[in-house]
């Protein structure tokens, strides 16, 4: 296994108390595999990724438990400089907002080339040639002429391509993409997603795709982990989860999306609001919003039940959820 997150706990110390952002998350990614982590804002999907990447703000954040095994080494036990060597070379991250993630006063060529100067000790000239090569690879037209341009001179889709190029530069074995296409228009979204999937295949990388968009995931992911209130509530290969969700939250999410191919009457809506991380409901965190909740849900935290060989669901009533369709 390339990456294995085991029982990860992350909390944030705020003035109002301790916000439990991640409460025992387990997931794994193999080489060449795409794992989609799905969740709404505050579900802990990005915080988990930041902990893996080692870019969590500490304080106020604190990893209060768990292991992150990357190529069989626990990242949480490494020294800062060892981690820095892994970051960028062996794992890289693509962020949502390319404009604020790129340095506005350096040309994209300099920013891309810097990777090679710092990690590979190349000369400026060689690094520049490498930068042009990378821009070609992510299909930025006229790379040679544009290598000296600044981020603001590129469109949103092109900037996201530059982010991808930067992440791919040192051919890492794991890429974490946090909402990589959320800020883009639909027609550009498709281009960027296709590019990402293609490069991943080519380099046989592991890819963690963090998103709130069930649509984007359907096209590229191999397996999906759905998060709610800092826990994984369901994991499944991609096909099954859309056909037969085994957790009421996943089911509610799928039903609440308006569909392109029909004019519905009233949309199904999950009642209530996502929980406040300072006061996560006892028992199953989803129970106040769940149409299937029973007394046991208010007291017992559901473990990840085995639905079948590849599927898990953290619902006491996963069987009923499956049958109830």
């Amino acid at each position, binding site marked *: 296994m390339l990456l294995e997150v085991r029982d990860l706990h992350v909390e944030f110390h705020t003035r109002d108390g301790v916000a439990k952002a991640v409460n025992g998350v387990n997931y794994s990614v193999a080489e060449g595999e795409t794992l989609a982590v799905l969740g709404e*804002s505050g579900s802990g999907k990005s915080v988990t990724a930041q902990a893996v990447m080692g870019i969590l703000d500490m304080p106020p954040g604190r990893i209060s438990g768990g292991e992150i095994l990357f190529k069989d080494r626990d990242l949480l036990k490494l020294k800062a400089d060892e981690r820095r060597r892994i970051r960028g070379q062996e794992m890289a991250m693509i962020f949502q907002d390319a404009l604020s993630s790129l340095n506005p006063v350096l040309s994209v060529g300099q920013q891309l080339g810097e990777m090679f100067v710092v990690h590979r000790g190349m000369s400026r000239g060689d690094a520049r040639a490498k930068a042009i090569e990378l821009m070609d690879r992510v299909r930025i037209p006229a790379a040679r002429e544009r290598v000296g341009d600044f981020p603001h001179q590129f469109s949103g889709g092109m900037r996201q391509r530059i982010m991808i190029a930067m992440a791919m530069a040192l051919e890492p074995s794991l890429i974490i993409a946090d909402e990589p296409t959320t800020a883009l228009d*639909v027609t550009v*979204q*498709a281009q960027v997603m296709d590019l990402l999937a293609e490069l991943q295949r080519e380099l046989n990388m592991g890819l963690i795709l963090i998103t709130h968009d069930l649509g984007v995931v359907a096209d590229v992911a191999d397996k999906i982990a759905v998060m709610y209130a800092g826990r994984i509530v369901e994991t499944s290969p991609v096909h099954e989860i859309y056909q037969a969700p085994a957790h009421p939250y996943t089911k509610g999410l799928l039903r609440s999306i308006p569909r392109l191919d*029909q004019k*519905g009457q*009233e*949309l199904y*809506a999950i009642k209530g609001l996502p929980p406040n991380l300072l006061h996560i409901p006892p028992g199953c965190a989803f129970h106040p919003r769940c149409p299937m909740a029973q007394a046991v849900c208010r007291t017992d935290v559901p473990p990840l039940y085995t639905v079948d060989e590849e599927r898990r669901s953290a619902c006491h009533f996963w069987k009923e959820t499956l049958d109830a369709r």
Partner: protein
Amino acid sequence: MHADDAGREGLSGGSTLLTGAREADRTRPYAEGDPILEVRGLVKHYPLTRGILFKKQIGAVRAVDGVDFDLAAGETLGIVGESGCGKSTVAKMLVHLEPPTGGVIRYKGEDVTKLSGRALKAVRRNIQMVFQDPYTSLNPRMTVGDIIGEPYEIHPEVAPKGSRRQKVQDLLDVVGLNPEYINRYPHQFSGGQRQRIGIARGLALNPEIIVADEPVSALDVSVQAQVVNLLDRLQAEFSLSFVFIAHDLSIVRHISDRVGVMYLGRIVEVGTDEEIYDHPTHPYTQALLSAVPVPDPSAREHRERIILHGDVPSPANIPSGCRFRTRCWKAQERCEREVPLLAVPAVFRDSGTPARHDSACHFAEEKRVVPPEERREGPGAAGEAQPHPPDEDTPGSGGTDEGGGEGR
């Protein structure tokens, strides 16, 4: 919430939106059944200047470049397009936040762009806006009561001083918030609740038209559905007309009676939701529809995807002829020379199919990109799902009553 199509068509002689004969209507008084809002040739250009002391105009950003549409009373018109297509600028001009460079906006037959003073104030009362971002469109230092009640300061005739608090509480109740929250501040609410506050503010003056600019795009999926349902309900309850602007095609289909697709400052195709989604004839609409990710992996096999190349050109430098031609796979020499008009394409003029609707393309051709069979697949297929009012869910019963037709 269905369009008063008969009235609209009767007025324009059964023809389309863009007829010269329409100009004659200008002098006619507003009659029952006429469109409540008529937009003709709406233009907004932002000048590009050079020099500091002696500013010289060197060009213009043509954000909106000739937009025409009608809005019938009680109808929802959806406007979709990518960022930079001018859809938000249209919204701002409709509520008079931006003065148009040219064109007319007729509210009940009266050209709003020429009004000022008291007459303008009266019209603005009737056209209200709901903004996209519930985090920045509410003043953090004002209580919810002050935010929702602020419109009454400008239009005191709507609610006499003594009755305002009660009115605000009624509004909170209408949008599904606890009326006791009247003294709370925006930061004490979640995104979805804040958007409800924004909607309550939009309703405060009992407007006839609400212009909603991306009202749900900042919200989480589970909350988005609640707000969409609320808008739907309010429209029926207060017989509102909606202009609903969004980039999300699925939501627009859900809420709209008619849909206009915008590209680079113009509407390129307009029609009923069925005409646009099931029988699109403009290549841009087809590409847009095919690019929407569908939450169903089995749909991907029997679904053709049109991937457009390149980016939207800059509105400061719009291509000649058809503005979509630089990204269009059908583009020919004619597209470079001749601007296609928004009208029923000649090929469909005599056909009785839903393909007969306005489309600004020289080579319009029907192409179904959303396969109809998706209707009956997956748990997301709300077609058979009973609508679930959120509060009526009882333990054990919700989510269990979906019909068959879903293969496992």
